[in-house]
């Protein structure tokens, strides 16, 4: 069983955030919910098939009209006035528990504190594809605003009926509907009077325009923030169930290994220890965590590890192992990208370049490793786990144990981060397997080494770019091939008549999947480094060269905002320092970064200052947004400068923080964030796109400082090469 869970086939759903068509849909029992919640007003958002935001979320939702409607979000206002919102999204540090509450509070004209959001629970919340792709703000935020606005209007109707007055005379304020004429006011809970009222969101719910926002659009502090500074917040690994045992899984000696022999006798002699074997899956359970660790090390296993590629041959391997399938065409920002004739345009170009860029595999390394608590009771399985896709994990569990999904409940406590790395239910399946064998609840917490080895990685890639420009800096030809890393943001935002852009899927040597911003980081690195090379080849300032070839006003605006704050063109770098600029857009967010780099005495590049401008429509929470952008810059520095997974013959060679370097306090540059708040535009997500500018900006700054052009990420983990390699 488990050898499959460690499968190495690249999963296109993970690589490209796609969620496959679902076979089963369960009608939502609204009456059942009213029973649980008590009377009051419940508002549902019904999403028509193959329409609306949910359709965008997967791109290929089912469309049969006879099936029951999907409910994608709902809200309940109880007799006591308590407002509860249900969403399948999960909180993992991106601060959506707060930003979604703000949007509901805005529409219902109540303080944020009066709202409770139930998240990521397959039994209590509506089905959701998962929390990824920066979709929470544009999709769930929009839905919840519509739901809350519908609730507000329904409450006004109830008051108008009660008082027999024209609803136009009524006003909503502070959780009450008030009649300014008579001075009467009724709280929401009193208005519902314990009736069971159900409302479905109308086509055009009267949502409040961003210009009139009072609660949304402000820096509301993180909901429940106090529990994070007192240690009270319970992550998955902190949960305790009655009679709970502690589990450990025996990891194979290498990827794709098969178990040839197992001796569990020494382990089984330890008090209370059980050894579980199911095919190549081996685990132990013990009454306490310490004994479980000792039991694990007492197991004697022999594995057969087949020969596998190593990182030394990675980029040649990726070029040679293209997967013969048509994937990625017309998706991931590629649609409509090919036009004209690159060959003809290249032939007549004044300046021609052909360059190859590479990115290594990197690890998410969320500080909370994968963990799960699993409990079987009467044929029903309940699992608490930190995952971005609770419903997918429910299905994964149902499939693993051959039970119906309605016999599985997955609950996601607010999680110690994921960055795209927790799409799968590996720990959940393992804990459930151990709990099934033990007949008791089992907690399983992965070690850092397991997290670095048995999770999945951000895809490595090779990107080949060919370009042509006129002497005046007009871009005329653009050819771009991405091998393996992915199609996200593969299209160029620059105006160029002759384009050929293609993603080439590859049989990945390592298990790979989503990572914050997906391949947008790799594609921006290649594109924005190449644009810099072209700028230097034509002798034009790199910022001016970009602006000259840009038609997109929003992208121009962030470039100009970042450049202005940075002082681009107004200051000269000190000796040994250089300035670089890069930018782009993805997932509705526009980003530009200016970086100042210093080369230290050991020839290591160090970021001194980063200015990043970002625009994602109407800002829902400027405090949370700044936090995301600052964090993305810091995390992005790691992949830009020094992070790389080393592997050899089926083994990860640097599975510890002592060997896999992540950004630390000493790496921190001065960071300045410039927010462009466009209240006239829909709010978009911001968890990902702010990460894409930093790597090319840093690389371009290194070139400016040294004349050395680096074309691989990480740029210089061991310091700069001695001589110029920018041939």
């Amino acid at each position, binding site marked *: 069983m488990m050898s499959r869970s460690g499968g190495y086939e690249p999963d296109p759903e993970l690589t490209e955030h796609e969620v496959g068509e679902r076979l089963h849909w369960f009608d939502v029992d609204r009456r059942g919910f009213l029973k649980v919640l008590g009377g009051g007003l419940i508002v549902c958002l019904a999403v028509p098939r193959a329409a609306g935001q949910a359709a965008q979320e997967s791109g290929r939702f089912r469309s049969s009209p006879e099936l029951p409607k999907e409910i994608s979000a709902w809200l309940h206002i109880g007799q006591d006035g308590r407002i509860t919102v249900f969403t399948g999204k999960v909180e*993992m*540090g*991106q*601060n959506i528990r707060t930003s979604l509450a703000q949007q509901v509070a805005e529409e219902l004209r109540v303080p944020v504190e009066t709202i409770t959001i139930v998240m990521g629970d397959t039994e209590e919340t509506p089905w959701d594809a998962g929390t990824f792709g920066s979709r929470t703000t544009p999709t769930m935020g929009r839905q919840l605003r519509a739901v809350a606005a519908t609730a507000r209007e329904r409450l006004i109707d109830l008051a108008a009926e009660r008082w027999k007055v024209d609803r136009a005379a009524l006003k909503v304020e502070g959780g009450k509907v008030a009649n300014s004429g008579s001075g009467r006011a009724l709280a929401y809970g009193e208005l519902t009077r314990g009736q069971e009222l159900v409302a479905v969101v109308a086509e055009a719910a009267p949502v409040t325009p961003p210009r009139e926002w009072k609660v949304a659009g402000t820096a509301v*502090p*993180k909901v429940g*923030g*106090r529990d*994070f*500074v*007192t*240690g*009270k*917040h*319970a*992550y998955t*690994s*902190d949960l*305790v169930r009655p009679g709970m045992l*502690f589990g450990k899984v025996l990891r194979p000696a290498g990827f794709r290994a098969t178990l040839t022999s197992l001796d569990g006798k020494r382990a089984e002699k330890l008090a209370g220890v059980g050894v579980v074997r199911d095919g190549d899956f081996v685990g132990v359970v013990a009454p*306490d*965590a*310490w004994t479980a660790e000792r039991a694990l090390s007492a197991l004697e296993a022999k594995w057969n590890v087949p020969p596998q590629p190593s990182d030394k041959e990675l980029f040649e391997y990726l070029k040679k192992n293209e997967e013969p399938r048509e994937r990625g065409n017309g998706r991931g920002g590629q649609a409509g990208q090919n036009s004209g004739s690159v060959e003809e345009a290249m032939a007549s170009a004044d300046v021609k370049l052909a360059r190859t860029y590479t990115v290594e595999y990197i690890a998410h*390394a*969320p*500080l*909370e*490793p994968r963990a799960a608590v699993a409990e079987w009771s009467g044929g029903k399985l309940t699992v608490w786990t930190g995952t971005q896709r609770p419903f997918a994990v429910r299905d994964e569990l149902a499939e693993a144990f051959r039970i119906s999904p309605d016999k599985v409940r997955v609950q996601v406590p*607010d*999680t*110690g*981060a994921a*960055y795209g790395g927790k799409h799968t239910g590996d720990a959940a399946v393992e804990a459930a397997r151990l709990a099934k064998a033990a007949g008791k609840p089992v907690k399983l*917490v992965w*070690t*850092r080494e397991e997290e670095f080895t048995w999770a999945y990685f951000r895809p490595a890639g090779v990107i080949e770019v060919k370009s042509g420009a006129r002497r005046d800096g007009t871009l005329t030809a653009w050819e771009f091939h991405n091998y393996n890393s992915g199609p996200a943001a593969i299209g160029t935002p620059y105006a160029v008549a002759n384009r050929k852009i293609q993603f080439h899927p590859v049989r990945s040597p390592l298990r790979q999947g989503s990572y914050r911003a997906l391949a947008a980081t790799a594609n921006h690195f290649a594109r924005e480094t190449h644009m810099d090379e072209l700028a230097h080849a034509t002798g034009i300032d790199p910022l001016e060269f970009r602006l000259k070839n840009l038609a997109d006003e929003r992208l121009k605006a962030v470039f100009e905002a970042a450049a202005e704050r940075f002082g681009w063109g107004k200051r000269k770098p000190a000796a040994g320092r250089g300035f670089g600029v890069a930018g782009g857009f993805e997932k509705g967010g526009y980003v530009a970064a200016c970086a100042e780099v210093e080369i230290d005495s050991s020839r290591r590049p160090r970021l001194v200052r980063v200015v990043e401008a970002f625009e994602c429509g109407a800002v829902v929470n400027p*405090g949370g947004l700044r*936090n*995301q952008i*600052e*964090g*993305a*810059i*810091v*995390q992005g520095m790691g992949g830009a400068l020094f992070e790389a997974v080393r592997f050899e013959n089926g083994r990860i060679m640097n599975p*510890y*923080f*002592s060997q896999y370097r*992540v*950004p*630390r*306090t*000493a790496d*921190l540059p001065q*960071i300045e964030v410039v927010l462009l708040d466009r209240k006239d535009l829909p709010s978009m997500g911001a968890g990902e796109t702010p990460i894409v500018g930093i790597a090319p900006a840093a690389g371009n700054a290194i070139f400016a400082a040294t004349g050395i052009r680096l074309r691989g990420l990480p740029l210089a983990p061991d310091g700069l090469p001695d001589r110029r390699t920018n041939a």
Partner: protein
Amino acid sequence: MGALVLTVNGTRRNIEAPPEESLLSVLRNRLELTGTKYGCGEGQCGACTVLLDGRPVRSCRTPVSDAAGKKLTTIEGLARGGRLHPVQAAFLDEEAFQCGYCTSGMIVSTVALLESNPSPRPEDIVGHLAGNICRCGTYPRILAAVGRAAQAMRKA
């Protein structure tokens, strides 16, 4: 299994644990003090930081027997009578976290710094927290929170 007496956050606790078991494992799994986090088990991330007689230690690399007879303080022991410790308040005010998983270790490390050095220079703060990883990258806020806490503690 051995019987040990620990003084945790001012309270004497009798525990049964092998002396070589990590202090982190005892805190989390035997005393249900789960505010102290496991992040790496190699003393590299600082999520498990606790104070032993006021000095910061990585509890994942500390055998529980080392804590016997010493004054042990965890994140749960910082607030007094529902009032946050100034370092906790500063982290909250600066919103110096995203997922919050590193926060306990950051706060406990900071308490240790400010108790030994009430007026740290920026490079002192950076150096002291070099062993604490925030993978969400909230370092700018963390450094600001430490500065804010230092100021608050000097005034108090």
